[in-house]
């Protein structure tokens, strides 16, 4: 009965009843199996033990004195109760026997790379780990789930561990649980609802600041990915990628790490997370990268992949990603959305290339073509990026976005708007002359919206500033009547004063004062963008 892996640990089976009738003969039997010198580790396998009395417990006490590591495993509920009442669970290691269940013919309600979730009955699901994860991993996941729950994430926590074939499983009580993937696949009209709940939950997770040392830092994993795959890139791109990943801000945001719709369930009207073993800490761009990977990235070469994993097609998955990203960033600023997407994709490709090579190799034409495609995308993205993070704090604080102002569309709001824009222009280093030039343009556009956007009532205008590459942009967004001010003909400047009219002059001035002006109408919104460039020589045009 010696443990082949450890000559110093002996496992001895116990069976039936151990009470005053047979205690001394049992002790003799155990001692004969141990031999003359006491082993360091002694494991008593209680799988077939039905009962143990105080006479039996005294044997345990004596054995404990001789073996520093005494454990009892496969303990039935009845025996466990005795050990617990007498305080023995505190003195020696006691491991309960696991209930055995079968998931044969059970419906799979969610499936990830590491585990599958089955519905056992109407209010119970079991998550079965696929790769022979041991008790340690399950315990760790339970601990992180508990941490997440305490910190405010709606999490399902398993109440029991069971054996499913040779694997372990965690049991959850979840009434009528359905994964979001199922909902999207079966009821496409609920996509908007799913996006909203999905993003709300993501905001909740990311808004949690993780105490130091509680969760693994995601950046270290990302750096590992890059280190393993960078030899596939040319030296310049490899170096830039490494540099950019290293430079991502080390924030303390909680990240889920594998946030996709198989891991979120709707149970009895409540939205809950069921997979917590990937919880980590770091900048949210890493989370967005993994979401991109799950919904778009992995399927870029073979669109069938997402169908296999999520149960809906690649177009649906792409739409889900795009709507979720937009909702997550909570903005209409197209340039910002595109920028964050590029950053997330950049991280996703380095992760995916490494993942694919490690899990599937580079042996087939398909392997090589997939990796080539991702490499090409990655290098193109790298050329256009100077950093990989973004102001996640502003995104997560929602309305507190320091670069946006929402006001009533009326003339009374003008001063607020003008102050808002000029303060930011000055802070960005624009000289007073340019600030004034741009202020006139801002005034003209704002007054135009205040006067005409909402003819039958009131509404708001959102003003957003954006600075990049020596240029300033001010974007005006309103939900008023569709109106393109740029379509208006320019006034005739040659007319004498008596025939001149002022209509259209403001817009005309704006066209002259701004370096660029553009208008679009999208999703029921007028979006007008003014751009002013900082001249290279420092002198305005």
């Amino acid at each position, binding site marked *: 009965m010696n443990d082949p892996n450890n000559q110093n640990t002996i496992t001895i089976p116990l069976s039936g009843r151990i009470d005053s009738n047979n205690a001394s003969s049992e002790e003799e039997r155990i001692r004969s199996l141990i031999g003359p010198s006491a082993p360091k580790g002694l494991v008593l396998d209680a799988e077939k033990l039905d009962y143990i009395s105080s006479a039996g417990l005294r044997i345990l006490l004596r054995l404990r004195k001789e073996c520093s590591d005494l454990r009892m495993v496969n303990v039935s509920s009845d025996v466990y109760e005795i050990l617990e009442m007498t305080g023995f669970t505190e003195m020696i290691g006691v491991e309960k026997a696991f209930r055995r269940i079968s998931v044969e013919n059970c419906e799979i309600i969610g499936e990830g790379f590491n585990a599958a979730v089955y519905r056992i009955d109407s209010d119970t699901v079991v998550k079965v780990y696929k790769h022979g994860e041991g008790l340690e991993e399950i315990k760790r996941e339970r601990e992180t789930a508990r941490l997440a729950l305490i910190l405010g994430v709606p999490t399902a926590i398993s109440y029991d561990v069971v054996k499913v074939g040779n694997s372990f499983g965690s049991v959850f009580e979840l009434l009528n649980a359905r994964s979001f993937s199922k909902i999207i696949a079966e009821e496409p009209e609920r996509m908007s609802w799913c996006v909203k709940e999905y993003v709300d939950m993501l905001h909740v997770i990311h808004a949690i600041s993780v105490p130091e040392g509680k969760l693994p830092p995601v950046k270290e994993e990302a750096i590992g990915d890059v280190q393993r795959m960078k030899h596939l890139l040319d030296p310049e791109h490899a170096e830039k990628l490494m540099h950019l990943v290293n430079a991502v801000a080390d924030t303390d945001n909680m990240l889920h790490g594998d946030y996709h719709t198989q891991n979120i369930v709707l149970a009895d009207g409540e939205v809950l997370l069921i997979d917590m073993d990937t919880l980590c800490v770091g900048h949210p761009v890493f989370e967005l990268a993994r979401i991109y990977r799950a919904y778009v990235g992995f399927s870029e070469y073979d669109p069938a992949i997402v169908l296999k994993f999520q149960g809906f097609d690649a177009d649906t998955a792409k739409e889900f990603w795009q709507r979720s990203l937009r909702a997550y960033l909570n903005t209409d600023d197209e340039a910002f959305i595109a920028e964050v997407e590029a950053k997330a994709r950049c991280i996703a490709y380095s992760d995916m290339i490494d993942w694919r090579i490690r899990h599937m190799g580079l042996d087939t034409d398909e392997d090589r073509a997939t990796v080539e495609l991702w490499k090409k995308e990655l290098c193109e993205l790298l050329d256009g990026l100077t950093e990989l993070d973004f102001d996640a704090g502003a995104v997560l604080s929602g309305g507190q976005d320091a670069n946006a102002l929402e006001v009533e569309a009326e*003339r009374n709001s*003008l*001063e607020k708007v003008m102050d808002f824009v000029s303060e930011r222009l000055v802070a960005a280093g624009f000289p007073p*002359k340019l600030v*004034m*030039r741009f*202020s*006139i343009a801002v*005034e*003209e556009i704002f*007054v135009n919206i205040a006067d005409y956007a909402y003819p039958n009532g009131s509404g708001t205008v959102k003003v957003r500033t954006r600075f990049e590459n020596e240029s300033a942009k001010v974007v005006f967004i309103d939900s008023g009547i569709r109106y393109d001010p740029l379509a208006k003909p320019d*006034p005739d*400047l*040659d*007319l*004498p*004063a*008596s025939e*001149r009219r*002022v209509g259209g*002059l*403001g817009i*005309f*001035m704006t066209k*002259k*004062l701004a370096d660029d002006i553009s208008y679009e109408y999208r999703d029921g919104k007028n979006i007008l963008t003014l751009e002013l460039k900082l001249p290279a020589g420092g002198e305005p045009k």
Partner: protein
Amino acid sequence: MEIIKKENGSALTLELRGRLDTITSPTLEAVINTELDGVQELTIDCSYLEYISSAGLRVLLSAQKKMNEKGSMKVTNVNEMVGEIFEITGFCDILSIE
């Protein structure tokens, strides 16, 4: 914005200080509408005018139209920024700017 009035017989000088924009131009408009009786020479002194938007231009245009009927109007001491606005809007051709 501050408007400083200097009267000299039938000549009126309005010195504009600060910003002539959507918010402030109604003040100048009120002056133009009520105080031009008997004025034959109107001078708009822009020495201290820092800023002008189309709302300001509209008031200047209406003053110019009024003065065309009974006398003359000139705009003086225009700074670079305001001058640029007059330039790009063609107002330098319809106002007499010194």
